[in-house]
């Protein structure tokens, strides 16, 4: 397969017809297959696009690293600083090269201090501008961080381990033992996902350079597998991708591909299209909102709204609120099935009023109505309750259908795997070639795509206004 981050115009090479494909000779890949039967099937890349498909490109992590390295090189050559410094400056300015250059030309030292590259005292004094050290409440006690002459026996002020012999510091000279530095860097990267790692001294705003991090981990890091360093590189790539509206990181867990899709990079473009893209590992997701599926026919904002609604337990909570109450004596849940307000808890026999939850004995002779709530407040409360019930039932109608499809989509991942097995079997037991048995796979894929679309039509219906159009829409859905 062609490399995914190859920018060359190899598209032309794949535009030709079937004959070409077969003559490639190598084992057929997915791309080739899709190409050959392009008629009705959506093809990930390198193929003539359908009107509803959007041009995009998948980049591997190394490819993105190359892109960011180009920016770093550019800045380091203009400013005459090393790569680590250029990287910190760029990250501080969220990879906005133009703004960085402008600001740096204006006042190099204040940008350097703000980016944590140099300390205020070391940088040529910039009188204007606020102090870069972020204050976090007034602290009366300043910590012991006076640099100690290196000759004297020196105990790390973090671990107080007097057996430590190697000490490290950034250019601020705040010295700590190598063990503490390593534990700190590892925890920042692994636990907090932080790539801008500040000096451990209280209030020191200096940020550790990439080279400091990499060399410390390499020399003292406990994990031989280099996973912390790997994670650090990934965090840098993610930061670069996050700062660039043309790029999106694949939302699938542990996938490291990035997709570039310039035509969907503006917010306004998302009101008229759904930029469904797929990464180099064939993960399909929406470039606009990072939903990990194809949410057509609804646009991003609607998909987002719907998913938020589903996530928020508020609807379920509403249901529980409007249908059940808790016995105020024994806390068991009681469902009311209509009618009279005089409730008796089945469990503890406590008698109470459904409306005000007060003990029934206080209601005297007002048998089946609660006289405390016959006032306006009571009427309003009941109105609100029935309104919320109606909206809830409407939501559940659509949600159940949506969720059904969501559930079966999960099951069909299994089905997909089974199909692949079946295909292998068929190839052996029948005279069909590998290419010929591909129809099974595509049939499953196509069914999946239809299901995904049908699923999202329920979300769409939920938000459509009641009216003719909607009835028409629901007729189509059946």
């Amino acid at each position, binding site marked *: 397969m062609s490399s995914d981050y190859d920018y060359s115009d190899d598209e032309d090479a794949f535009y030709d017809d079937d004959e070409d494909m077969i003559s490639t000779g190598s084992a057929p890949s997915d791309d080739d297959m899709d190409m050959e039967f392009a008629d009705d099937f959506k093809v990930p890349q390198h193929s003539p696009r359908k009107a509803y498909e959007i041009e995009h490109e998948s980049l591997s992590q190394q490819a993105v690293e190359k892109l960011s390295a180009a920016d770093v090189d550019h800045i380091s050559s203009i400013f005459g600083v090393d790569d680590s410094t250029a990287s910190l400056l760029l990250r501080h300015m969220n990879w906005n090269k133009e703004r960085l250059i402008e600001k740096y030309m204006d006042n190099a030292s204040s940008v350097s201090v703000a980016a944590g590259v140099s300390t205020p005292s070391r940088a040529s004094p910039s009188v204007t501008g606020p102090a870069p050290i972020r204050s976090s409440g007034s602290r009366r006690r300043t910590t012991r961080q006076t640099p100690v002459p290196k000759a004297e026996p020196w105990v790390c002020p973090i671990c107080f381990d007097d057996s430590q012999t190697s000490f490290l510091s950034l250019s601020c000279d705040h010295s700590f033992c190598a063990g503490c530095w390593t534990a700190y860097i590892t925890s920042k990267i692994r636990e907090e996902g932080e790539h801008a790692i500040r000096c*451990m001294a*209280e209030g020191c705003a200096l940020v550790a350079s990439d080279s400091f991090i990499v060399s410390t981990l390499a020399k003292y890091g406990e994990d031989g597998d280099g996973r912390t360093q790997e994670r650090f590189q990934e965090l840098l790539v993610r930061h670069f991708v996050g700062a660039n509206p043309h790029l999106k990181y694949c939302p699938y867990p542990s996938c490291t591909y990035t997709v570039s899709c310039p035509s969907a990079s503006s917010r306004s473009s998302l009101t008229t299209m759904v930029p469904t893209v797929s990464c180099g590992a064939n993960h399909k997701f929406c470039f606009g909102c990072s939903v990990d599926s194809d949410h057509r026919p609804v646009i991003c904002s609607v998909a987002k709204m719907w998913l938020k609604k589903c996530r928020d337990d508020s609807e379920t909570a509403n249901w529980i609120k409007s249908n059940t109450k808790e016995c105020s004596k024994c806390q068991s849940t009681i469902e009311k099935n209509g009618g009279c307000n005089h409730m008796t808890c089945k469990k503890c026999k406590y008698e109470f009023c459904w409306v005000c939850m007060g003990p029934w004995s206080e209601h005297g002779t007002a048998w089946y109505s609660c006289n405390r709530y016959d006032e306006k407040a009571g009427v309003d409360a009941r109105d609100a309750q029935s309104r919320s019930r109606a909206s809830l039932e409407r939501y559940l109608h659509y949600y159940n259908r949506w969720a059904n499809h969501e559930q079966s989509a999960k099951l069909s991942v299994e089905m997909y795997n089974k199909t692949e097995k079946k295909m292998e079997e068929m190839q052996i037991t029948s005279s069909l070639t590998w290419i010929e048995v591909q129809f099974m796979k595509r049939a499953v894929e196509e069914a999946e795509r239809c299901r995904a679309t049908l699923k999202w039509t329920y979300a769409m219906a939920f938000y459509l206004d009641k009216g003719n159009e909607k009835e028409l829409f629901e007729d189509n859905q059946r």
Partner: protein
Amino acid sequence: MTSISSRRLRKELSEIQTEGCPTGITLLNADNFETWYFSIEILGESLYQGEVFKLMFRFDSSYPISAPAVQFVVNQESTAPVHPHVYSNGHICASILGTEWSPVLSVSAVCVTLQSMLASCKSKERPVDNDRYVRYAPDNPKKTRFHYDDDTV
């Protein structure tokens, strides 16, 4: 528990026992290296005159590389101070316990910071999102990613 955290806590404890706590702070209980309790009051003029609160520190093996979990104790005997950065369940929104934590800070440094946070309070109010936060809050405040809007209040 690994050596760094227990060595550090042993050192801090012996310092507290020989030099004592900062004024207004009293060690109530430090029987192990997992949970410590302090009482805290604001001396001098403040909105919390005459009030005594109870602080709970929870440590795990990542201390002091990462911050301890610190909160006010809320039970029958004690409540959380009414303060714009203190939730009614005792959780505290202070950057020093999150992003601004530095491994050189100590338990008494945290106590002193919280003391001055209360001392400088100008109006006794709960955080605006108190009810929502408390309803969904995790048991351990370290699991919350607070948004530190204004630490100077």
